[in-house]
Each structure stands twice: as C-alpha cells, then as structure tokens.
C-alpha cells in the first residue's frame, strides 16, 4: 500500500511540475507566471492526499473483496476511531489553511496597487466584436496593441450584453457589463502575439467573438500609435 501511494504521489508531483507550463498558453505577463506557479504548488500539495485515497481504495480492492453470490461474513464492527478522525481533520485543515494562505497571498500580488503611470486602454465589447481605444490619442482599433514591460489598465465595458474579456496568455479576465466599467491590470513582459476571447456567453456568434493582440517594444508601440488614423 505504501508503495502504491508513493508511486501515485510521485506521478502526481511530476505532472504538477511539468504539465501546467506546457499545457497552458504561452505565459506573457506577471499574472500568468503567478497563475502557473500556483497551479504547480496546488497540484504538488494535493498529490499525496489524492494518492492516499487511491492507494486505500486499491488496497481494499486487492485484499478485502469477496466475489460470488454468497454473502461474506460480517467484518470487524468498528464504529468509531477518534484518533483517525482527528488526524484526518487536522491534516485536511492544515492543507486547506496552507492553500488559503498561499491563495490570499497570490491574490494580494495579483490585485497589487496599480503602478505610478499605467497605460489606460478602454475595451468595448459588443455582439460580437471587440474594439479598443487609447484615451488621449483618438486611436481606436479592432486589435489590441501593448508595449512590453509597462503596466496596462483595461477599463472594460459593453454596448449590449455581458461579455467576458479574457487575454488567454496573460491570466486576466473580467466581464464587460453594460452601463458599468470594470477594470483589470497586468504587465506584459514577453513580445509576441496573443489571443483575446469572449468567456461570457453572448449569443449567436459568441464563438467568433475573438481577436488578436500584439505586445510590441515601446518604440514600435509609439510608432504604431502614430501611424493610426486619428478619430474625432
């Protein structure tokens, strides 16, 4: 039984360490790094518990089962075992507290106060397209362009129904609500292209409410901004 447990635990830990960063979209922001790290930690923490239950179940299957139509004799009449219950409660509570502390810490980092001079971008969702405008510049675009290593604050709203603004590579997601502005912020730290998808069901073409975003160097970004048509 111990070995079953050990094997499953090790397997779980390995999956926890190697899977997330490989399965999830390329991480392009601080939030996404944190998300992936948290997934690794949680998986590693949960592996031994899951392994324990699996090992026990397998052990029961291997040693204590009776086949056939004859009713087996009665088992040991154990009704209570205070030690086991308390230990179990203690362990699960400790684990929960650990996950909680980690989670709250991560949350604090995630929602950390906005930096001195974030780039503000107004995000507008409508059925079934996104559009982005850069306050103070009269520039509006159907794709999102961001400078690298500068904090961005998205001010998200909607024209018609609730949409979900989600940058799949940056671990930030917030709904676009009608008549309300919700904000999220993140700091892209990798150059490249990323996907933006709608995560809140918004009707007929919900599946096609997608667009691309690009993280540029600050000089590229400035020239892009300058090259865009100015709208009144």
């Amino acid at each position: 039984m111990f070995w079953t447990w050990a094997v499953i635990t090790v397997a779980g830990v390995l999956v926890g360490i190697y899977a997330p960063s490989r399965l999830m979209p390329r991480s392009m922001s601080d939030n996404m790094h944190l998300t992936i790290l948290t997934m690794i930690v949680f998986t590693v923490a949960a592996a031994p518990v899951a392994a324990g239950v699996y090992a026990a179940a397998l052990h029961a299957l291997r040693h204590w089962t009776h086949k056939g139509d004859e009713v087996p004799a009665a088992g040991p009449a154990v009704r209570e075992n205070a030690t086991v219950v308390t230990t179990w409660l203690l362990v699960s509570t400790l684990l929960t507290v650990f996950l909680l502390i980690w989670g709250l810490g991560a949350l604090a980092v995630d929602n950390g106060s906005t930096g001195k001079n974030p780039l503000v971008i107004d995000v507008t969702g409508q059925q079934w397209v996104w559009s982005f405008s850069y306050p103070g510049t009269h520039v509006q675009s159907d794709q999102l362009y961001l400078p690298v290593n500068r904090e961005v604050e998205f001010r998200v709203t909607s024209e018609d129904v609730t949409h979900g603004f989600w940058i799949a590579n940056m671990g930030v997601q917030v709904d676009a609500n009608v008549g309300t502005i919700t904000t999220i912020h993140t700091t892209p730290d990798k150059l490249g292209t990323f996907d933006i998808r709608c995560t809140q069901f918004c009707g007929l073409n919900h599946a096609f409410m997608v667009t691309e975003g690009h993280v540029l160097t600050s000089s590229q970004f400035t020239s892009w901004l300058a090259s865009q048509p100015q709208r009144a």
Partner: protein
Amino acid sequence: MTTTLEATKTAAIPQGGGLHRRLNMLTAMIGGALFAWIFWFLAHHFLDPTSRTYSDEVTVSLTFGWIVGFWLGIGAFNAPFQWLVGRDNTRDDDLYLAGQGQGKAKYWKFTTDHKVVGVQYIIMTMVLLGAGGILAMAIRTELIIPGNHFVNQQVYNGFVAVHGMLMILALIVAVAGPWGNFVMPIMCGARDMAFPRLNALSLWTLVGAAALLLTTLAVGSLTMGWVVLEPIADQAGVGMDFFAMAIIVFTVSTTVASVNVICTALTMRTKGMTLARLPIFVWGVIIAAALGLYAFPFFSLVEVLTMVDRTFSTSFFIASGGGTGWLQANLFWLMGHPEVYVILLPSVAALFEISAVMARKPVFSYRTAIAGMTGLAGLSILVWAHHMFTTGWAPTLGGPFMLTTELISIPTGLFFLVLIGTLWRGNIWMKLPTVWMFGFIANFIIAGITGIYLSDIPIDNQLHGTMFVTAHFHYVFVGSVLFGAVSALAFWFPKVTGRFLNEYMGRISFWLTFIGVQVTFIAMFLSGLRGMPRRYSSYAMIFEHTNFITTIGAYMIMAGMLVLLGAVITSWNKGEPAGPNPWHANSLEWMVPTPVPLENFDVLPVITEDPYNYGEELVRS
C-alpha cells in the same frame, strides 16, 4: 411491471367516485393543451398591443395555461377544492388515491402511494437523463471538428441551454426522487409520506415542467445558456418564456417535495427509531431537502424577474432602466451553489448506506458523516460569489468568498474518510452497487481537486469560463453523482421489482461509462487549459485534437448508458429473482416483503438498535 409491483394486500376496491377518479396523464395532457390554447387565444386578442402572434405576453400566458390545465387534468386541484367546500376524503377515498386495486393504471394517475411515486420518479429520471443525454451527443457531434457543420450556432446554443437545464433537473431528482420516496419512508418505519397528495403533486408538477422544457427547443432561439444569463435573456426568442415557466413550475415541485421529505423523516418515525438510529441515507435526504427549501425560492424569483422584464418591460436586468446583470448572477448563484449539494448529498448518503451493507460493517463514524453533510450544507450557502470572481462584481469580497469556498474541502474530505473507513478491513461484497461505488471514489477525487484550483482567484482569472470549468463540474455530476445514482439503482432495484439488475450488463455498462468519463473529461480539461472557452459552437484549430477525443469519449459514455438502460428494461420483468432481502441488510426496507404491500407494515415495528450492527450480536426475536 404490474405483476411484480401490485400490492399483495387485496382489500375490496372502493366503488363509486365520479369524474375526479377517472383523471390520468392523458386527461392532464388534454387539459394542458386545451387551457394553453384558451389562454393563448385570450392573451392574443386582449393583451397584445401590436398583435404579434407570439409576443412574450402571449407566450407566457400560454405556458401558464398549460400548467393550470395540466394540474386540473391530473386532479391536483381536487384536494384544494374538496377542502374549500368541506368535503374531506374518507378512508376509502384515501385508499383509492393510493392506487389500491388499480393495477398498471395507477402509474399513470395522481397516485399518492409513495412506492408508486418512487417508481414514477425512476421513469421520470430516466426520461430526463435520456433527453439531456441525446442533446449532449448532439453537442459533442457538432464539436467533433472545427466549424459549424452539423447544426448552425443558433440551434447549437439551444442545445447547450436545454441540455444543461434538463441534466440539472434530472440529477436533482435522480436519487432523492426515486429512493427518497420509495425506500425512505419504509426506512423510517412509516406507512407513507407525511403528505401523500403533496407527494403526487410534486411528481406530476415535475412532469408538467419537463414537458414545457422539452418544448423550448422547438419554439425559439435560446441564446442565454442554461443559467439564463442577463441581460442577454432579454434578447432570446419566445423559447425563453417556456424555459422560465418550466423552472418556476419545477421549483414548486421541489419545494413541496422538500417539505414532505422533512416532515416524513422528522414526524413519521416508528417507535424506537431515534434520530441516532436513523439510517444515514435518511439523514442525507433530510439535509438535501432542507437545503433545497432554502435554495429554490431564489431560483423561482430570478426566473419570474426575467419573465416580467420580457413581458412588462421592467428593468431588473436592463442597465438603461437602472438594472444590472449582476443581480441575476447573485440571485441565480445564491440558488446555484446550494443546489449543487442538493444534487450531491443524497447520492453520497446512499453510498454511505451501500458501503456499510456491502462491506458488512457499520458506517464508519456515523456522527462524522452527519457532521460532514451538515457542514457542507451550511457552508454551501456562503460561497455563491465564487461563481462571480471574474464578473467584476465586488472585487473586495474575493478574499472572503475564497476562504469560505476552500473551507468546503474539509467536510468534503470527511466523505472520503467515512467511505474508506467503512470499507477498511471489511469483507467487501463485489456486486454491482459496490463496483459503481468504487467508480465514484475514483472520480470524486478528481472533481474535488480541480475544484480547489478554481476556488483560487488567480487561477480562476485564467480558467473561469473555459472548458476546464465544464470538465470540473461534469466530473462532479457525471463522474460522481451519476455513479452514486446508478449504484443506488442497482442496490434498491430488487426491492422495487423483486429482481436483480443484470450484474453482467451492469459491469459492461460500468466499464464503458468509467473509461468514457476519463477520456471525455480529461481531454476537456486539456481544451480548457489550452484556452478554449465554454459554450463555443466552433473553435480554432489548436483545440482540434482534444475536442475530437472528448467526442469519442462521450460516445463511449452513451454506449454505457444505453447498456444500462437495456439492463433495466430486461431485468425489470425477466431478471434473476431476488428475495425480500437480497443483500442481507438490516435496515427496515429489507424487513418488509417484496413487493412491498400498500402501507408497508401490517404492524408498525419497534426499533431497539440501529441498522449497522454487522459483526455485533444480532438480536432478532
């Protein structure tokens, strides 16, 4: 079905009786259709200002007419009318209502006998699961390759909405319906439920609601998902009105059933059946019912508000009138999360019961089991906002709700402790119920751990609204609740039919379903991790392979369920005969003969010990 289920007790069939004794499902359908037409006609001619044939006002009154007519036609209004005019039932009337000496016919009528209602619930559950399953297959077929090939996105959205709601209704009644009605009163040593006529009412109300829900697909574009998102539900077609009315009617059914279950378990117990001797399954059903009583008023309210927004143009969810979609989200999830445990608890409690009988051991730490279930129920009403982490509503409350949500893993952990503890060193009888129980243990672990990820806000900000969430709650509902439900079906099937559920077919079904679940939903986890949002009618190439695998797995699950259906149908009349107590269990439902006579006990038993005294000295005088 008749021969095995006909009450052996053959008292004289009460004579006479008038129209209200001639009512049945057919008259209910006719009444429903008739009144639907009348209400449609009236509304069409007097309410509708622009005389658009199917405006929301007209549709709402049509659906209302349907349910009124259905109730009238099944005889639900007889009792209130009799009460009003002061003509109460005689004992003969009661016996007749309980279906005495009416053979097969009683299964199609407003019959109050809790065993008949239990069987009706078994059929109802299978119908709902079947319909929802067919839609699931349609959804997976659409998603087998990128692009809209099988149906267009409008039809697909309707499939998603109705699949979700059908399955939720089906699972809410899947265990508590059949077994909470059939065996729970006998377990307590009662002759029937506390309010037999309310019991029949809850069943037939569910039938009326299901009919409305199945109609939605035919009558209009359902662009709002099963949670009836606002404000988009304001745009949906008239199908939305059917949908809302179906839910409102369903909440009536569940509220009535909850009250009935609680009163039965608390006031109908026979002499000596103290709360401490109550079979653990009864506890599970009580707690689930209490939770339902708390949750479902929110459900009906949010649907009523949706309906008046559409018909009277109120502004509950319309920003230009001061409303907000967040109100819908709050009300819905105030119901929605407790409802998850209304679904889960009866299933888990049934498995506690089964594990004790099959391992020939007492339930390990009976008190812990009750504490776990109660704690879960209590916590579940404090966690609703974890469904709203990414909606932008009250970000400051994120921390507190994250705390309550993660605390849930402690009572949930106790379930594993009790199950494993009961099996520990037992002599585990590997019959069909046991097999499905082990399936539950394997799947419920995965469901639980993926839940821990989603309760953590930084992770939720990435995974919320993706297929990862879908896969997570399908591990809960399909992998866990459904496995528990099938285990319960296999366990109590002999008490209903007097025959075993075919062991061999049951195991084929198990392996197909179990492997199918892993293939389907692990692949779905991967889709979610790679970034595929939920409710997508089509998807980018990068999600191709995982979706293909998911669809193949879904087909396996379908095969497994079909085999189970075949097993149920063939075993019902032709299965291997089982005695009154095939599992050599000690709880009361196994002490009465099979088929169980009307009113269960000639002489009410007196209880001196709880049913888990395996291995202890058995005192049977």
